[in-house]
């Protein structure tokens, strides 16, 4: 019997756009390829929050989708914070990245409360930041993706950015940073999907999860030739 890894996708019904499923699929497949049996759990508003979760993945949504999950997210916030404190690896993209912060203030001044896992705030911006993006991360090297957001995110004390911009707008189009890092949580605006073209982050999530549950992680060698070539092409494309 292969050792199991429980993977939770947060709000697949409402927060699942621009290839967020690609991140879940990548963690599932790579877990398999590394010799684990991934089990997918889905959590939607009003559902039962599963126990024993090893990896949490969340994505972005339409404005309407964010409205639908907002109340529920605050309800499960203590559970999410407990998982973070327990060093559970997590990846949150775009909409849920914003809501993992303290708040999102829309252009018309309406404030959406976040769960405060990241000490950051987001403000609705005048225009969408859209296009290919490349950042350099001390942990993961070059991270390559695509951004499409109007929220401008500013990091507070105690939160590190995920990386420094090489190309693109990043958190707010003003400073030179993208994403956020705390404990084993990665927050970012990068779609692409993020994980398939950045397998180092996927393997890091799986390694953290395996070490935590089983005390060991012996990676398999995965053929990442297509990922390498896709990265190379993406780097050469216009914004």
């Amino acid at each position, binding site marked *: 019997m292969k050792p199991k890894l429980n993977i939770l996708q947060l709000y*697949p*019904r409402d927060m*699942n*756009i*621009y*290839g*967020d*499923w*690609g991140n879940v*699929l*990548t963690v599932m*497949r790579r877990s398999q390829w590394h010799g684990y049996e991934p089990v997918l759990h889905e959590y939607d508003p009003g559902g039962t929050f599963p126990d024993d979760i090893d990896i949490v993945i969340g994505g972005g949504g*339409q*404005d*309407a989708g964010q409205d639908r999950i907002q109340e529920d997210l605050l309800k499960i916030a203590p559970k999410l914070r407990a998982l973070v404190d327990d060093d559970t690896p997590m990846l949150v993209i775009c909409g849920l990245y914003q809501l993992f912060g303290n708040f999102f203030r829309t252009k018309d001044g309406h404030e959406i409360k976040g769960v405060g896992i990241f000490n950051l705030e987001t403000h609705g911006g005048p225009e*969408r930041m*859209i*296009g*290919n993006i490349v950042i350099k991360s001390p942990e993961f090297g070059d991270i390559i993706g*695509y951004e*499409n957001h*109007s929220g401008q995110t500013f990091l507070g004390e105690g939160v590190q950015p995920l990386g420094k911009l090489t190309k693109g707008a990043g958190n707010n189009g003003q400073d030179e940073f993208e994403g956020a890092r705390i404990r084993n949580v990665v927050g970012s605006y990068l*779609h*692409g*999907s993020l994980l*398939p*073209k950045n397998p180092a982050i996927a393997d890091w999530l799986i390694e953290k999860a395996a070490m935590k549950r089983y005390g060991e992680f012996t990676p398999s060698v995965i*053929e990442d030739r*297509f*990922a390498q*070539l*896709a990265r*190379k*092409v*993406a780097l050469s*494309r*216009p914004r």
Partner: protein
Amino acid sequence: MKHMPKPPLPLTTLLGKAVREATRLRGGGSALPGLFVESIDKDFISDCLSKLPQGVVLISGTNGKTTTTKMVVELLEGQGLKVFTNRTGSNFTRGVAAALLGDVDMMGRLTADIAVLELDEAHAVKFVQTVKPRYSLLLNVMRDQLDRFGEIDTTARLLRTVAEHTSDIVVVNREDPRLLAVSRELPEDKVRYFGLDASLRPAFPSDDDMRGRGAEIGRLPKALSVLEEVKGHTAIFSLGPKKLTVTLKLEGVYNVFNSVAAIALVSSILGDDLNPDKLVGALEAITPAFGRGEKLTVEGQPLELVLVKNPGGFRLGLKSFDPDGYATMIAINDNYADGRDMSWLWDVDFESLKPGISHVSGIRAYDMALRLQYDEVEVATVDPELGQALRGFIRTNGGQPKRIYCSYTAMLALRRELSKLTEVEVVS
């Protein structure tokens, strides 16, 4: 140019036709002459179209515009009308202007009964500010080119504006929850619906949810025309109290659904003047639009081009065409017209292509190959260069029918390559 007085229509026409001829001689694109006349005379389109006895019909939505427009044109022609249309699939207003330059006489007069135009959502909104369509047809709102439109809900708002500016009748896909919401804000007598029989809904994956959890369907309004049944190439449509049994030349159940849209629209335009026998006759003669399930013959074998522009369209395509017995190629570009964001490939499920496909090509060939790797679909050859990949695809799969799923600019490039090997209809 801003301060120059507007030239009289015959002069604009003359200049525009000259530019059109010059670009044609140079072998250039179809949009430039359109851009030119738009810049010297912003009323050119409305002046040309305003005098048509049966007015203007506008077709918009994410998927199926070109195919449906072609159908509507042929159905109306089958009823004896003379129809003007923009058939290049250049669904920007400048494409309409360019098409007009080809069809008007030297005085800028258009001899037609009715104009049927396809426009993308953003250009449709721009268009209705100057020309009020008498009829509009709203096909669907799906995730597409969000790098241009931002959000799918924004796209729905664009179509609401189109509906509001339509003077007589708006024909709406009642199966699309966003469009249904739009239609419910319109006066009831202005709206006609087309739809699907409940038994066919599972064949149409919902766009909101790639993972098969269909959206909850509340009570749907009564439709003027419904696709009741599809068996192979035979489809049964209802039209009011009548049932029409039709043998179609079209491939793919989504193209059949587009024909219900066309039937509902044509019947709304003609009312009691509609001749049902001629309608069926014209329907049976319709062939797919270029690149939209278009069938060519290469070395004695059929080769189908299936345009895929967004997750909803790609999913419908994969669901409509059985890969069994076919060699499959996928070609994905990321030029502006294709959308630069590759995330959409991850919102499509490719498992139906297992165990594997023959070729992957296009600028983003490796992104596509990577996507297939994660669905454990094997790829025999990855070659980003389209012409080379196409020739390899044909060579290694001799004696077999072939199918190519391709993004928009990849489709255009492949048709150019294919025209060196076989007869390909020129669309200009």
